[in-house]
């Protein structure tokens, strides 16, 4: 391969292969944790109720029809607690989990 081709390919690759350029993760919609605890009940709460109560948020939709939803709640030190929901194919919340803020989390 000529030097010119090598240079062109390397330049193109630098543009095309942003393996080292990670975007900051998109946060979920911030909600009040106490209200979230009151309103969200796995096995009963629906997608429509989530949207009505807390609005849209970061969501990952899978080929299986399942969805993972991320809300956040303010925590100490400017960090946040993650509130993660698994919404089933029927639109009903199947699971809920919380990830607390850890001291090792970066401060936003």
């Amino acid at each position, binding site marked *: 391969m000529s030097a010119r081709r090598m240079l062109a*390919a*390397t330049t*193109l*690759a*630098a543009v*095309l*292969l*942003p*393996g*080292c*350029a*990670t*975007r900051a*993760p*998109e946060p*979920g919609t911030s909600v009040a944790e106490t209200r979230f605890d009151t309103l969200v009940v796995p096995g009963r709460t629906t997608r429509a109720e989530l949207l009505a109560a807390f609005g849209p948020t*970061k969501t*990952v939709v*899978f*080929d*299986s029809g*399942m969805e*993972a939803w*991320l809300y956040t709640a303010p925590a100490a030190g400017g960090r946040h607690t*993650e509130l*993660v929901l*698994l919404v089933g194919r029927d639109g009903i919340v*199947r*699971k809920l*989990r919380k*990830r*607390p803020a*850890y001291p*090792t*989390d970066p401060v936003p």
Partner: protein
Amino acid sequence: MRRIVLPALLAALLPGAAQAQAQPDQGIQTVTVTYTRDPVDKSYRKMIRGMERFQREHALAPQATLRFRLLPRSPTVDMHGITLRVAGDHITVPVAVAPDNSFVLPRNEQALQEDAAVVANRKTTSMTWRAQVTTPGLPPDARRLGDLRLECLVGMEAGLVSNSSPLFGWISNALTSPEQVCNSPDGNFLFFTERPLFSVTLHAGDRTEILPFHFLYAGGEQTRDMLPFCDCQVLLDRTYYAPIWDRSWPDDTLVTFDYMDDAPTAQESTP
């Protein structure tokens, strides 16, 4: 954003055909080979280098063994009945594939000299490949962080990851060493679980932490348009990043999983 490709440029990759006669018997099975080289076949030399890397870095996982594993990438690929062979110009070495599509690569000097390829009876781009480093005796639904660190180093050394286009794969390899990928928070090396994931937790002594949401599902940033260029394409719900770069977590850290479904089904347990 992960690595991307320009599909139109792939047209430049037209496979050539090669026919070869077998060499006289040298103590191994040899046959007449008609082999169509695919430029995206896995390099036997690289995979052997990956195995050598495993030996050099064995301290990360002293009790572990190494296998390689085939995983689905294309939505239509049939993962049953896969056969595998090491194919050079004058040699073919069959490779036994286990029911979970894992295998051990035999070492063969002639195949090394001939710069052979590791070829499956599927289109190479329909699957993704990984190293599988497993310490025996771990609890169910748990991995060991040192095993994952070694999987990353071996997988990168062996050239297994196929997020970028084949056309630019060699450039990608030139620009990203195993150390750059496996020792950096931006390395973005994907791991896969056996079943769809809901949560991943690290345990080291008294320290326990749940991984943040953006460590799951390839960061949760993959759009429908981007997925075909990620080797998580059909395994998105089984995909996670582990903090293999973070040395505050020792090699003996246990990585445990909670799944979307509490009980596996036969279909889900076989990716």
